């Protein structure tokens, strides 16, 4: 039986980030195992949006440090060839009169208080940045220039490359089938490729976290939720890379948008999706009625998209917790275990920051941001992290 100081389950964008940060912080014997291949699970389905706009303060903090990493990716990984595919187009968010207005004003103020550059735009200024949209109903429009979108798969493979360069072993196509315990302590993992002892186990199993819950006998509140993404083509009003990613709090689906290159727009709903019975990332069915319904919402904001074509459509899966925020840190009285799950649609944006926090926690170092608000026992104590926009991936 081989022994590792740290074993990470999952080589998605979070697991590979943990591996990179463990090695960068000096950990020596690190193994990452993934049942498939690097970044091929939920990571590959990410829409890749990057912003610091959150109504939950801790998330703003994490998003800010993560943005710095994305914006200086090659330096961050000490690898001149590393790229995260960043398109720094900024992020615009708007709300009409109504129940979203106060939360938006408060969240924008909180960002400014934290020293994040946020501009309030009038309708003319918003139209100048996004000439293909109509802002007739907008009561408040915020714009953060330090935002945009990037490529989650590139980020996962870059973290993995950095980790390997620093001596981490990444084993693909290996499933963990159970844990080895000594009393309350996790001391190893059983896998389809043999048994490994470990000092600390880090689970970044995303929608497969319920497997961990079974192994340790502690319920972990996370469900797989499928969301649909559409790429719409409109040659009359191309959504260019120069136009910001955009959040429409006024639309029924709280839609988010970004350029998808060429004359295509990527659009998806930011509300509760379809809960799946079992964790799987396979493509789900997308009805034409759904396309028409979302299309009508899009056309309400982007008039020319009234006649848009459907270029492609796909589904992705979130690991959703009851308050749409992650659980980070220890679980109950289990020793030698660090978990990160329930990213609820913001895993990619926060991946550099969260990878570092989980690595620090596993190493027994002080964490950059307190993990206390993200503790599992918040679901028992009721100190939930629910965002001011309600359930959904804005948080």
């Amino acid at each position, binding site marked *: 039986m081989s022994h590792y100081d740290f074993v990470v389950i999952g080589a998605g964008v979070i697991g590979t980030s943990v591996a990179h940060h463990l090695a960068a912080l000096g950990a020596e014997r690190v193994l990452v195992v993934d049942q498939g291949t690097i970044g091929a699970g939920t990571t590959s389905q990410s829409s890749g949006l990057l912003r610091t706009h959150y109504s939950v303060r801790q998330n703003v903090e994490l998003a800010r440090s993560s943005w710095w990493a994305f914006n200086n990716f090659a330096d961050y990984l000490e690898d001149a060839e590393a790229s995260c595919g960043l398109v720094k187009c900024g992020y615009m968010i708007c709300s009409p009169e109504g129940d979203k207005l106060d939360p938006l004003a408060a969240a924008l103020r909180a960002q400014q208080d934290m020293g994040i550059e946020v501009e309030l735009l009038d309708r003319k200024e918003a139209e100048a940045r996004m000439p293909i949209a109509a802002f007739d109903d907008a009561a408040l429009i915020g714009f953060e220039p330090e935002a945009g979108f990037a490529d989650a798969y590139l980020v996962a493979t870059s973290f993995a490359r950095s980790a390997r360069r620093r001596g981490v072993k990444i084993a693909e196509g290996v499933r963990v089938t159970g844990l080895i315990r000594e009393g309350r302590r996790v001391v190893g993992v059983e896998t389809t490729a043999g048994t490994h002892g470990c000092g600390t186990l880090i689970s970044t199993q995303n929608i497969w976290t319920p497997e961990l819950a079974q192994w340790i006998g502690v319920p972990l509140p996370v469900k797989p939720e499928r969301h649909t993404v559409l790429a719409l083509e409109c040659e009359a009003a191309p959504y260019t890379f120069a136009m910001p990613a955009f959040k429409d709090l006024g639309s029924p689906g709280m839609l988010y948008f970004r350029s998808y290159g060429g004359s295509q727009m990527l659009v998806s709903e930011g509300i509760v999706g379809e809960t799946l019975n079992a964790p799987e990332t396979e*493509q789900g069915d997308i009805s*034409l009625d759904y*396309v028409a319904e979302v299309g009508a919402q899009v056309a309400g904001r982007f008039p020319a998209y009234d006649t848009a*074509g*459907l270029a492609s459509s796909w589904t992705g899966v979130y690991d959703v917790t009851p308050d749409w925020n992650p659980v980070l840190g220890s679980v109950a009285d289990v020793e030698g275990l660090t978990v990160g799950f329930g990213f609820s649609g913001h895993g990619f944006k926060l991946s550099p920051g969260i990878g570092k926090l989980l690595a620090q926690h596993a190493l027994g170092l002080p964490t950059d941001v307190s993990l206390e608000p993200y503790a599992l026992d918040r679901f028992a104590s009721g100190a939930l992290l629910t965002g001011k926009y309600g359930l959904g991936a804005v948080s």
Partner: protein
Amino acid sequence: MSIRILVPVKRVVDPNVRVRVSATGAIDTTGLKMSLNPFDECALEKALQLRESGVASHVTVLTCGLPAHQDVLRTALAMGADDAVLIDTGPATPALDSFAIARLVAAHMKDADYGLVLCGKQAIDGDVGGVAAMLAALLGWPQALNAGALDVMDGGWRVSCGEDAGIANWQIDGPAVISADLRLAEPRRVTLPSIVKAKQKPLVTHEAAALGVALAAQSRVVALSDPPGRAPGIQVTSVDALLQTLAGQRVFEAVGACS
């Protein structure tokens, strides 16, 4: 000439979905993304182009299956087909084979005046590719399979059918069954207004029983299994070694380059 074109289509698991065989040896497609068979999309696109150029006056799409399979007919209507027919095959649906489908389509055609059948060369799920040839035989019509190009010429059809070994050009007069490969036409995108408009287009359902076709399958599935896993690759050190290795594995013979 201004004819009616029939485009028989199939609803299949989306090409981007990885289909798995379950522990019980079955393939379960519940909840998976379903699509119009890509070869049928090419056939439909060509039919629409023929209508737009005045060669055809009307394009009908047809599928055999369950009421839930209407979704691919809606997609076809949104692409531009004029009307759609569902032949409801009820509980017999899972066991339908190419010959049953061909007979159902032929039975439907008895009461309608089609001048051309354009369909995909095969469905990407079963990969049998039997319907077009069987339908042509049942109708007594000429057939051209795996068409990569189709033009109107001398009052008939000039069809280029090809595969790796070469291309055959056929001149066909009168009604015919032509099956499309992916080169025949690049399918257009559905647009948001066309999705809405498609809801107003006629979609009729016929019970398979009313067509007088016995649906008992003449073929049966013996077993389903995942494809064998790929063996790991090897590294060679020179171009010569590469050619030697490929020759040793008889790769060139397989593509007909050395025969």
